[in-house]
């Protein structure tokens, strides 16, 4: 059975309030990283102000001032989820410590969320990396339909950040994906990220950036596990995507993200026909099941297939069956219930969103998610009198009133806050409260020992070696040791550990020139 490695990067949203005001983000982040350096056993990251921890994971500051935690290289999806959750706990501990010792006046919180609803139009990521040995150029054709359709279980759920209404989406991040293939990661992001930065010798790395931070273990497990298997099948030459080529992947991604019923037929090519996202997923799953015990598949392929099938069956069975298991389905249940409690008829949101969209276009306003100027639009001074007149007639015919839209718009910020707080780390997070209450069904057997994973590396490959060496050298402050994914070195000692082989199990040291140039 073939070994496969994967890893996950989580960019966190961190915010702090000082009284009723926003605290300086830079101050929070600086304290947080400083605390990480001084309280965690670690080696300095050679290429940033961050650090590598004794569990072989990396904690650093990424672009946009987002603190990011990268899991170590994991050999299976159980470990991938385990180390994602270990990263959450490390972050939470740091924040608790910071609030307790450094900045008690600042209320700091950390969120698993990937879009900013405050109007900045900002997004940040939860990226996955999959080691593979094929030509990177051959991957898009095999993977894009999978990445688009996996939104049905891998979507975080939330609201379209560019809508001026309140448009629920399976994947808020999807609105920020602008290309089918792109090598950019901070603008014009693609469904398929073409950058190939292996960070090791002898293999390539698939870097997926269209994903989102999730809370459900089942959703994470299937996302990581199924993607691994699709990559393995592509690498083995099975061409898993050949029979399910989407005619327009970007349009399909938008359609899947907006399709709460999971029944939207997507336009395919070669030959032209239509398939739903579930049907596309079942195509990939059937191929994986047929080859689950093949030599090119990892040992855990059958169990991933079992959970993958379980996920698709749950989703196909309807919202009642999946609302306890997948992030977007949980949110849909919670939001619609909350809407009812706040006097909003959830089923009419689609109508009102269409009304706003129509008026926005007629008023030549940008789709930037900002506040819609309803009072101006329907006032006697409206810049679109004919449109409003027609809409007035339509509302009368339907027995509706503008007041309902006023109520919806007044509650937008509240829904955005709920979505953000859903993934808040710690006991104040809505997901955490639901989990604590025992009303969810998202756990995957075998994902345990999270506390252990905070201090110990996975037991396979170079992550195991890196973790052991970080643990051993962290106290040698005079040595000025630096760490990166494929190396640990000290110019002061003139020694370096080669970590370029991702499957290495024993330390391999060599001499390097002694010098004052301590970094890379």
């Amino acid at each position: 059975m073939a070994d496969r490695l994967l890893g996950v990067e989580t960019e966190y949203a961190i915010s702090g309030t000082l009284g009723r005001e926003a605290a300086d983000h830079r101050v929070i982040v600086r304290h947080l990283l400083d605390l990480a350096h001084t309280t965690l056993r670690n080696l300095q990251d050679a290429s940033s102000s961050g650090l590598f921890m004794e569990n072989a994971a990396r904690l650093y500051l990424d672009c946009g001032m987002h603190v990011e935690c990268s899991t170590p290289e994991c050999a299976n999806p159980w470990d991938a989820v385990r180390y994602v959750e270990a990263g959450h706990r490390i972050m939470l501990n740091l924040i608790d410590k910071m609030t307790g010792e450094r900045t008690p006046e600042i209320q700091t919180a950390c969120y698993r969320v990937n879009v900013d609803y405050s109007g900045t139009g900002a997004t940040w990521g939860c990226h996955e990396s999959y080691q593979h040995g094929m030509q990177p150029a051959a991957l898009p054709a095999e993977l894009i339909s999978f990445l688009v359709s996996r939104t049905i279980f891998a979507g975080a759920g939330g609201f379209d950040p560019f809508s001026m209404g309140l448009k629920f989406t399976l994947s808020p991040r999807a609105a920020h994906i602008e290309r089918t293939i792109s090598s950019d990661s901070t603008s014009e992001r693609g469904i398929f990220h073409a950058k190939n930065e292996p960070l090791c010798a002898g293999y390539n790395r698939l870097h997926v950036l269209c994903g989102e931070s999730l809370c459900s273990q089942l959703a994470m497990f299937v996302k990581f596990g199924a993607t691994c298997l699709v990559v393995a099948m592509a690498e083995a030459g099975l061409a898993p995507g050949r029979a399910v080529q989407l005619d327009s992947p970007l349009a399909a991604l938008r359609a899947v993200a907006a399709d709460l019923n999971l029944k939207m037929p997507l336009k395919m090519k070669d030959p032209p026909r239509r398939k739903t996202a579930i049907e596309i997923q079942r195509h990939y799953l059937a191929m994986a099941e047929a080859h689950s015990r093949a030599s090119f598949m990892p040992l855990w392929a059958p169990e991933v297939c079992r959970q993958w099938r379980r996920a698709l069956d749950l989703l196909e069975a309807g919202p009642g069956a999946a609302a306890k298991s997948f992030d977007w389905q949980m949110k849909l249940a919670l939001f619609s219930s909350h809407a009812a409690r706040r006097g909003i008829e959830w089923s009419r949101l689609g109508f009102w969103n269409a009304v706003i969209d129509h008026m926005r276009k007629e008023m030549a306003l940008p789709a930037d998610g900002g506040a819609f100027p309803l009072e101006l639009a329907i006032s006697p001074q409206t810049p679109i009198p004919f449109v409003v007149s027609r809409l007035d007639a339509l509302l009368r015919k339907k027995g509706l009133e503008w007041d309902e839209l006023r109520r919806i718009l007044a509650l937008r910020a509240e829904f955005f806050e709920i979505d953000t707080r859903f993934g808040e780390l710690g006991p104040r997070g809505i997901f955490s409260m639901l989990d604590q209450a025992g009303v969810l069904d998202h756990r995957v057997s075998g994902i345990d020992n999270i506390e252990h994973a905070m201090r110990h590396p996975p037991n396979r490959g170079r992550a195991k070696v890196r973790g052991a060496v970080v643990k051993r050298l962290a106290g040698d402050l005079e040595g000025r040791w630096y760490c990166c994914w494929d190396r640990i070195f000290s110019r002061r000692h003139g020694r370096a550990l080669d970590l370029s082989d991702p499957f290495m199990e024993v330390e391999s040291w060599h001499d390097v020139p002694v010098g004052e140039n301590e970094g890379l």
Partner: protein
Amino acid sequence: MRFLQRFNEQLHGQGSGDDGPGSSDLLQQARSQGDSLLAAGDQAIQRALAGSNSEAFLRAGRQQGGQ
């Protein structure tokens, strides 16, 4: 979409008159779990929003774009 209605229909098994022996326990369990999810959700949301001003919350949480 009438999600709540559909959600409740799914969980309350409306229209499924062919339940075999023993399935009533499962149905009862599903019913209470579905209700408990929504009840716990409402409670969690109330706790999360307690004393919060949503506009101020979003302003305070303003983020820059990342990757």
